[in-house]
């Protein structure tokens, strides 16, 4: 298989059920392209998914997949990484509801832990699978079935949140820029530490505001400017740029110790490789005599 590893190697017999034209299709392509380019085989990667249109993708991609509950892909992914750091990639996938609504706390804690996990958030600024309600990233004034008179809350800023909590790789992709997204994913997997890629993924069925055309008018790539993703203050400024111009690309990257680096018990084998033979309780029993 390795010699002819290609994008089809990552397919399952189940065909995607997303709406024709949905941004999920492009992310699905970019993710598989990235893995193939990195020569990672399906059994060397673990994916965790939440619940939402994006996470139905658990059925369309081959690998070791933990299709968790709504909001919970991250804690599952973190534990997979701690217990088997030898996997080539651990990728958590969720929507904006999973990531910035019900599972928000997990996201902040994963940032500060710097666990070696790539978090790919499919951010369509709406709840799609439940047929269109306002999400934590919906803009103020956004009208939906749950806010027919307009959303009166400010949206979450995922990138600013990641930056302020110690994430060491903070990026934004766009489902309309597959090649660009592929390269972000490759860098995100290569990055040692927690990597967030928040992906704008227009929901063509329910979000009639943040459409492909709306994004195309606004987005530009940081890589095409002289921006350097090494300065947290600049990254912070860029993360707040959400007006008529919206940056895509790598906002910030920093090399620092991952969770794994800090644990001497993981220096040799992965936790899953530890022998369970000849366990001796004497040391633990010492203080109870």
């Amino acid at each position: 298989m390795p010699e002819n590893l290609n994008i089809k190697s990552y397919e399952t017999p189940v065909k995607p059920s997303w709406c024709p034209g949905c941004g999920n299709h492009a992310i699905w392509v970019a993710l598989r392209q990235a893995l193939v380019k990195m020569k990672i085989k399906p059994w060397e990667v673990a994916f965790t998914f939440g619940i939402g249109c994006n996470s139905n993708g658990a059925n369309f991609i081959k690998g070791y997949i933990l299709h968790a509950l709504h909001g919970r892909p991250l804690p599952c992914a973190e534990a997979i990484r701690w217990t088997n750091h030898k996997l080539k990639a651990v990728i958590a996938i969720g929507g904006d509801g999973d990531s910035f609504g019900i599972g928000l706390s997990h996201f902040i804690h994963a940032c500060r832990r710097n666990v070696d996990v790539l978090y790919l958030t499919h951010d369509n600024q709406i709840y799609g699978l439940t047929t269109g309600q306002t999400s934590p990233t919906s803009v103020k004034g956004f009208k939906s079935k749950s806010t027919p008179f307009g959303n009166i809350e400010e949206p979450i800023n995922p990138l600013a949140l990641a930056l302020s909590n110690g994430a060491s790789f903070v990026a934004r992709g766009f489902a309309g820029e597959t090649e660009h997204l592929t390269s972000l994913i490759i860098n995100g997997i290569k990055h040692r530490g927690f990597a967030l890629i928040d992906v704008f993924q227009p929901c063509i069925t329910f979000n009639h505001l943040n459409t492909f055309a709306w994004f195309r008018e606004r987005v530009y790539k940081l890589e095409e400017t002289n921006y350097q993703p090494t300065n947290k203050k600049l990254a912070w400024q860029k993360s707040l740029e959400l007006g008529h111009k919206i940056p895509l690309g790598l906002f910030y990257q920093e090399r620092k110790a991952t969770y794994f680096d800090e644990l001497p018990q993981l220096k040799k084998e992965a936790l899953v490789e530890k022998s369970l033979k000849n366990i001796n309780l004497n040391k633990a029993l010492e203080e109870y005599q």
Partner: protein
Amino acid sequence: MKENINWKIGGQAGYGIMVTGLMFAKTCLRHGWEVFCYTEYPSLIRGGHNTYQVHAAKDKVNSQKKKIEVLVALDQNTVTKHLLELSAGGVIIFDPEKVKVNLKKNLKVQSLAIPIAKISKEICDSDLMKDTVALGASLALYKADFKILVSVIKDVFKSKSAEIIKQNIEAAKKGYDAVKPNSKIKVLAKLSKIKSASKIIVTGNEAIGLGALAAGCKFYVAYPMTPATALLHFMAKNERAYDLVVKQAEDEIAVINMAIGASFTGVRSMCATSGGGFALMNESFGFSGIAEIPLVLMEGQRTGPATGLPTWTGQGDLLFAINASHGEFLRIVVAPGDVQEAFTAAVSAFNLAEKYQLPVIILTDKYLIESPQSTKIFSTKGIKIDRGQILIQSQLNKIKDFKRYKFTSSGISPRSLPGAKGGEHQANSDDHDEYGFSTEDIKTRNRMMAKRAKKIQNLIKELPDPKIYGNKKASRTVICWGSTKMPVLEALKQNNNFKVVHLQYLCPFPVKFFTKNIINPQKSMIIEGNHTAQLKQLIRQQTGLNISKTLLKYDGRPFYPEEIIEAVKRL
């Protein structure tokens, strides 16, 4: 009359009551005696009322007693609250400078006044050593070997400076010497040295932690919550020596999902909490059920609902554990009755979780997991680690079309672990087909439900039956579960006119046991720590038997053998 020690120390939180109590217990243990310790404390760090009670005897002790012979009152509150617990001829030890004791004439109690604070001040210029002074005096009353107390002080304060150890020994000595050998004040028991097999003194938390280590638990995750917090401390302390990763997560929802994630990779993982934390975990508990991912979870009950009485005990979560999470799926609920059973149940929990690919709840309570008691030294001898059906690479190589959730006659489908070629699959919280792909197909859904449920057939044969104790011919029967076994067996020591049925494995319910063993519901009593007689409900639901009498308690306190003996008289 057998010699018994029933000693209690009380004072404000922050006085060091817990350490002093443990030192008293260890001193008894090192004289060859058996001990049972019971502690009470409020949910605050300083100023509240703490007590530590030690029941010791030359033979097995199963619980604390209501009546005590020695009360050490480090503050006035202890006198007010506990003086009447002293039995006739009992001794109250106090510092007349700090505490007033007015003994009414009808109260046959001896008072032993010792200048505790003054002695402490001479040693360390503060009253910091007062509990150690009182400890020395207490052990002098029981004529303990002072050298043994010194060895205990040295061990317990091992991590402290040589100066602190020296001061404590001096404080203990001065307290010890304050009780003259010819003193008129006497207690019945003499803490004489006896020969007995080496023992340890552990709480249920420690017993479960030791069981987890012995079973090869390599990932432990928790969020602090009384009374399960000490298990987190135990695992964290042993993290490096036993090559495991211990994680304190952001909340209980993260906790259970981390435990599931770790188990998915093939690591033996465990989490623990109390009722409130388990309530938060409930949704994900079902994920373990539907995705058939092994999970070991300790639920240490405290008094609910909501915050309830956070540092007190209870057995109010039995039906909650059995019915936890929405939807229907198989789980095991085991409620060990003492520290030995807690150790064994922990080891078995890992084996059962992996063998049957399901969640296992070790249902304990504050009383079991925070009460230190003596037991024979836990050993890994004879412990078998059964990892269930995990396909290794060479086995996967022979399988062309791997189905993680293959329909099998046992309901158990061999699993594969991340990294193994050909074993890729989806462990899915949606219901799924044999591969793990989401499906809403009627036939597949029904077959998959049946497959998961079918595991009960072999499982029920493997689980130990309830145990019968006491006078097997007696018509009077006491039925209990979990930690209530301890005071019930203590009551049995004094009054052997009843038999005891103790249920440890409660889910799946041991229906057959109740058909094999004739239990007269008119002559039976259920004793449990809740308001709605949950075991009574369960027995009636599962067997049709309606046990007529109950002794229930939901005030946060454990049962005392004295009240059990009284209750049995009603049968």
